[in-house]
C-alpha cells in the first residue's frame, strides 16, 4: 500500500503504470480513478484551486482509510496520491488505484475510497475563477454516499 501527498504536479499516468507493473500474477483486476482539476464549475470558469492539508494528520488519516478499504475488500494492493498546493485546470488532483483477484473488489474499493476522501480526508479546497473565490465543501450527494458506507 502506498499513500503519497504531492506538493507539485504529478503524472497520474506514470504513477499508475508503476503501480500496475508492481503487481503479481494473481492480480487479475486493476481499477483506478483520476480526478482532474476542471476548467469550469457551476460558478463559471476556474482559474485555480488552492488545496490545503494538515501535515502529519492528513497522511495518517488517509492511511487509516486505505487500510479499512484493503481489509474490507481483501485487496492485493492500493495506491492513493493526492495533490496539495495551487492546482491549475487539467492537472490531476487525486489518483486512486486498487489491485485485486477479481473485478468486483477493485471497483468497490476505488469508489468507496473516493467517497471517504470527499468527506473524511483532511483537505480544504478553495476555488478561484470568473465567479470570484469560494471554498468547496462536500455536497449533499458526497455526504449521502459517505453515510451509506457506515462506520
Amino acid at each position, binding site marked *: 500500500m502506498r499513500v503519497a501527498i504531492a506538493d507539485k504536479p504529478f503524472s497520474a499516468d506514470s504513477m499508475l503504470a508503476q503501480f500496475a507493473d508492481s503487481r503479481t500474477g494473481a492480480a487479475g483486476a486493476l481499477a483506478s480513478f483520476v480526478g482532474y482539476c476542471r476548467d469550469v464549475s457551476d460558478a463559471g470558469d476556474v482559474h485555480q484551486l488552492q488545496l490545503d492539508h*494538515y501535515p502529519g494528520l492528513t497522511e495518517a488519516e488517509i492511511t487509516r482509510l486505505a487500510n479499512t478499504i484493503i481489509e474490507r475488500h481483501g485487496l492485493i494492493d492500493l495506491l492513493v496520491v493526492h495533490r496539495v498546493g495551487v492546482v491549475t485546470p487539467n492537472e490531476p488532483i487525486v489518483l486512486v488505484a486498487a489491485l485485486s483477484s477479481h473485478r468486483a473488489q477493485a471497483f468497490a474499493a476505488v469508489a468507496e475510497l473516493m467517497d471517504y*476522501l470527499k468527506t473524511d480526508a483532511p483537505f480544504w479546497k478553495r476555488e478561484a475563477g470568473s465567479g470570484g473565490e469560494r471554498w468547496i465543501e462536500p455536497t449533499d450527494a458526497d455526504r449521502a454516499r459517505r453515510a451509506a458506507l457506515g462506520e
Partner: protein
Amino acid sequence: MTRILFFGRMSEAAGCSELDAELPSELRTVAALRSWLADRDAALKQLILSPGIRAAVDRGFCGDDASIVGAQEIAFMSPLSGG
C-alpha cells in the same frame, strides 16, 4: 503557550491560519476552548461553536469532551473535502 490552527473556511473567519495563545488553566476540554475562543472574537463565534467544525488535539481527531490539558497543538477544521 498552545498553538491553535484553523483550516478551510474556519481560517477565513479567524483571519489567520494559526495563533499562539496562553490558555487559562481552567480550560480543560475542547468544548471549553470553543466557548473561550467565541467570547474572545466575535468573528470567530459564528463558526467555532458549530458542530460542523471538527477538532483535533495534538494531531488526533477528537470530540468536544476531549481533554486539552497539556496539549501543544489544537486544530479547528471546517468540513473536510479531498478528492
